[in-house]
């Protein structure tokens, strides 16, 4: 890897990069994961479940470490633990998990304890210290064709589910009470979405590592939310940003001595900051300077916004 140089000829660069089978697999897996996480992430941001997403990703670490300890492979561990944790969170806290102080204490404790379990597994599996970093912060080396197939099957499954349940899910996410009266099975959708989220987080974690899932799951989606309020366009933009982030991060990692986690988070966060800054500027220009106090839906008084 030390002898490769990024040249001005982009085509030659890409051809050179893709001559390595591990890079091809990394791009395939990255593309699948980017699409999947962008769509799920858009709903996560809408539903304000970022904290739950974060917890699920932390759960992936003991899962992967435990599975490695048992010799079952990290991907199995990611999926097993993330899906199990999604069910537990759904049963314990339901939709609001993380929104209120007491519930977030519960979710936070679960998260801390699971990371501690991961640490225990790592300590038990003595020769594993260097692998820890890959489980936590991601690695694009050594993604096998079999893993790519697993990810592809999962992505097709999740996309089909989202296509079927998309509209009722959107309804339940914006306005649960009205949706229930209109005949939408809100509770079942909440549980179903948490399962989809668990599966997505597991898929993302296999690329970004357990701790950097946020970069791919939430940031492209949040960027899209800042740019447009239209659902269809938002989803499309979210996918676009996810793909750009993954592709450019993989390329940058290949041609530089710095790790994937750094590039991915930096690119995704830079996009988000640009969009958020642009949105704030636009909003300020559109409205007068009048501040009003509103009561946001989490019931905490005192947040402020500018009146239209």
């Amino acid at each position, binding site marked *: 890897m030390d002898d490769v140089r990024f040249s001005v000829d982009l085509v030659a660069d890409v051809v050179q990069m893709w001559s390595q089978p591990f890079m091809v697999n990394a791009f395939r897996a990255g593309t699948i994961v980017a699409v999947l996480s962008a769509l799920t992430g858009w709903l996560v941001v809408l539903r304000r479940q970022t904290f739950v997403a974060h917890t699920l990703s932390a759960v992936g670490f003991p899962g992967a470490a435990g599975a490695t300890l048992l010799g079952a492979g990290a991907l199995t561990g990611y999926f097993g633990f993330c899906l199990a944790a999604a069910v537990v969170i759904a049963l314990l806290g339901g939709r609001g998990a993380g929104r209120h102080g007491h519930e977030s204490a519960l979710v936070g404790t679960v998260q801390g304890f699971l990371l501690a379990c991961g640490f225990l597994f790592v300590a038990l599996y003595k020769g594993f210290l260097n692998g820890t970093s890959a489980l936590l912060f991601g690695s694009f080396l050594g993604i096998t064709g079999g893993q790519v197939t697993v990810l592809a099957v999962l992505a097709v499954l999740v996309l089909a589910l989202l296509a079927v349940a998309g509209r009722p899910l959107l309804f339940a996410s914006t306005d649960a009470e009205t949706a229930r009266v209109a005949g939408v099975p809100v509770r079942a959708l909440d549980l179903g979405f948490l399962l989809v989220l668990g599966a997505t987080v597991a898929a993302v974690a296999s690329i970004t590592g357990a701790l950097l899932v946020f970069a791919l799951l939430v940031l492209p989606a949040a960027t899209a939310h800042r740019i447009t309020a239209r659902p269809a366009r938002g989803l499309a933009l979210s996918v676009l940003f996810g793909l750009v982030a993954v592709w450019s991060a993989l390329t940058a990692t290949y041609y530089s001595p710095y790790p994937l986690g750094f590039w991915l*988070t930096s690119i995704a966060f830079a996009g988000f900051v640009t969009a958020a800054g642009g949105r704030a500027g636009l909003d300020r220009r559109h409205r007068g300077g009048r501040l009003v106090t509103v009561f946001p839906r989490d019931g905490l008084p005192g947040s402020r916004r500018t009146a239209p």
Partner: protein
Amino acid sequence: MSALATMFSHAYLREAFLAGTFVALAAGLVGYLLVLRAQVFTADALSHVSFTGAFAALALGLDLRVGLFATTVLVGLGMAAAGRRAKPDDVVIGGAFAWVLGLGVLLLTLYTTRRSAGNGAASVTVLFGSVFGIGHGRAVAAAAIGLGVCLLLAIVARPLIFASLDETVAAVRGVPVRLLGFGFLALTAVAAAEATQVVGSLLILGLVAAPAGAAARLVGNPYRALPLSGALAVLSVWAGLTIAYLVPVLPPSFAILAVATGLLVAALLTGRLRRRSRRRSLAPGTDRVPAVRGG
């Protein structure tokens, strides 16, 4: 039993208990206020930032603690300034936190390539703590800073609780709400940097959230729940360190977190039992309505 009797003859255990006690007390007190203010996510982000701070210091060849305290306090104040009324948005916190963690990975790479020696252990130490190797000087410093955080919190606790429960009313009554928000996040940042040295940056959240969650379930009165939360955190650390000493295969951070989680689960169960018995004692038609909390 004999192992327990000779426990404190080991210097490393005495140091671990000294540092652990005050760090836990600070984490428990800060944690309860975080739960009350619904800012647990902020503490989570801060704890992860401490990882990057530690590696920034290591990569620059400085004392690890300099990096810890400097970055957590700076990021804490930055988040307070960025958020509306010192209560930042979830996506902003999460995004910034992921990016800072990404920087940490970069610094880790720089540090490892520069020292070119097997430094996988350094990352594990920062991430998951190593209180048994804390050393005398660091233990005393950690205890002193922990005590300082507790004293400062004791001073501002009352207006802070008022501001947390009803910000607008508190502001009208002359409580400097915004200043308290800043100050509290700064104290949280110091407590997070402290706790990193005991349980490691990834596990801080457990030590901060679990005792606080348990205290909040057990006691409604915030003035009683606050010290209870601190006491439960200290209890977790004492029990955890003892267990880790008796069962050497368990890392101390894991044992501490396991005890803290156990306490929260016990508190949840007693709360549920109490509610059920109260409901049964209520005959239908009486005027009292049982206070049903949470969903």
